[in-house]
């Protein structure tokens, strides 16, 4: 089912058709982590790595408060130097149809104490007394898949957070809301919103990628390869073997379309030469007229793809599909391009309804 969440979306506060009261929120999605925060919070730093990384989202204005999320793969944390067994075991397991052995539980308390020690050191530099308190470990989640410890700290600033290990994705996630000592109440409110909405793995096989005004869901097998986050232009490139999905968004669409037509803009930005591809117009899931080019990749383009995909020839792309549309509601241009193998034909049509423009 396509994603129903948008950045700064308005949703009914209590019941459908009840009062006109609405609640605004910011949806953030990155590397399989997804959560909601109050409106106008913005991602200020992130890492590109999926196995272990971080994400920082700052409050609007002077940004005295921030939500910080760190994650690491518990399986990789346990693993020491890779052996021949480590590489061959998954193949034999698949061959013999044996399930993967359950990973031992990580030392959450040890991890947390290490993090708090680092925070304490920083507080010591600012000559502020540091205090922290940990709550007992508990099991939570819809199916009891999380083992979590809540914590708070104060010293220089103030923070409220949670560390947990998810049994589904084997990730250890630390999420905390940090602010100034005067923000005590606000930290509590935002932390509860953050923890209630936090998901640490893909849902229904799709990862949510949401930052600034770009909200899209991409199959979880795709990994982020490149990003360009400029004011007015956002671009995310995902890869799976040699296959690629590129999602781009431009602001000030009305200005851009004064100088170029939608087709000219598309030709300028397309990954391949679209001269010999079939052109058609469709209506997007959000009711906009989109211009779509698709078809088998010409030989010259295949050579280009081969050059770009020298690291992996798995799922070598032979087909291209790309579509562009203008969203007048948000004054933005959206472009989705997919270079796919014949096996994954229809990927563009799969991603398009999951890219929320308004």
């Amino acid at each position: 089912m396509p994603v129903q969440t948008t950045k700064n979306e308005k949703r009914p506060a209590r019941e459908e058709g009840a009062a006109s009261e609405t609640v605004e929120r910011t949806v953030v999605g990155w590397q399989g982590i997804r959560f909601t925060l109050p409106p106008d919070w913005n991602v200020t730093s992130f890492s590109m790595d999926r196995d272990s990384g971080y994400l920082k989202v700052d409050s609007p204005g002077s940004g005295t408060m921030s939500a910080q999320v760190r994650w690491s793969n518990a399986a990789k944390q346990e693993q020491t130097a890779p052996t021949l067994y480590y590489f061959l075991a998954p193949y034999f397991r698949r061959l013999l149809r044996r399930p993967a052995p359950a990973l031992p539980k990580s030392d959450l308390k040890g991890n947390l104490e290490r993090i708090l020690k680092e925070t304490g050191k920083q507080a010591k530099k600012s000559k502020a007394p540091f205090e922290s308190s940990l709550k007992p470990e508990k099991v939570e989640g819809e199916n009891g898949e999380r083992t979590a410890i809540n914590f708070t700290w104060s010293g220089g600033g103030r923070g409220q957070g949670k560390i947990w290990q998810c049994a589904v994705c084997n990730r250890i996630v630390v999420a905390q809301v940090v602010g100034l000592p005067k923000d005590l109440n606000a930290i509590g409110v935002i932390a509860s919103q953050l923890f209630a909405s936090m998901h640490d793995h893909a849902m229904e096989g799709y990862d949510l990628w949401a930052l600034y005004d770009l909200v899209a869901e991409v199959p979880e097998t795709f990994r982020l390869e490149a990003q360009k986050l400029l004011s007015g232009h956002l671009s995310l490139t995902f890869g799976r073997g040699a296959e690629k999905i590129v999602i781009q968004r431009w602001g000030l669409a009305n200005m851009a379309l004064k100088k170029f037509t939608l087709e000219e803009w598309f030709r300028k930005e397309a990954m391949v030469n679209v001269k010999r591809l079939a052109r058609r117009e469709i209506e997007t899931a959000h009711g906009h007229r989109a211009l779509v080019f698709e078809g088998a990749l010409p030989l010259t383009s295949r050579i280009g793809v081969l050059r770009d995909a020298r690291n992996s020839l798995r799922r070598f792309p032979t087909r291209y599909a790309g579509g562009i549309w203008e969203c007048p509601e948000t004054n933005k241009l959206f472009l989705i391009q997919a270079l796919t193998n014949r096996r994954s034909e229809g990927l563009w049509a799969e991603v398009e309804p999951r890219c929320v423009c308004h």
Partner: protein
Amino acid sequence: MRLPLKTRLYYGIGRHLPFLNIRPPEVDRKSAMTLRPGRNAQLTWEKRESGETILTVPENPKAGRVTKLMARWLKVPNERHVELDEVGGYVWELCDGDHTVESIVQKTGRQYKMNRREAEVSVTMFLQMLHERNFIGFYKKVPKKSWQRNPEEEVKV
């Protein structure tokens, strides 16, 4: 708006003798957003029907005799024109000394349906660029002293 000579000298000394640790006060984001950009009175501008705004920048009147002589010799024109696009023109019009940076960001964001952060980054960068070229200056609204207030303007409660 130029700083008084005494202050300029003071910070000039600090710049050349860093061990004295004299630095101008840092402007934080909050106070920067309350500044009011105002246009350089020497510039003239016109708005075209296509939406672009053309700024006419005259020759620097403070240029020295040698500079003027060189300019004449190299046939440098007396004025130059700078073209601003529609959004740039919109921001330029708002630089009237009455609007704060914050209100310009808000208005531009609303007008062109930009995200708050996107609008803030674009507008502040643009204003910085205009300031570097001396097209605008930033003013700070100073609260009037009691003796400066007009008693008729004061609202009686």
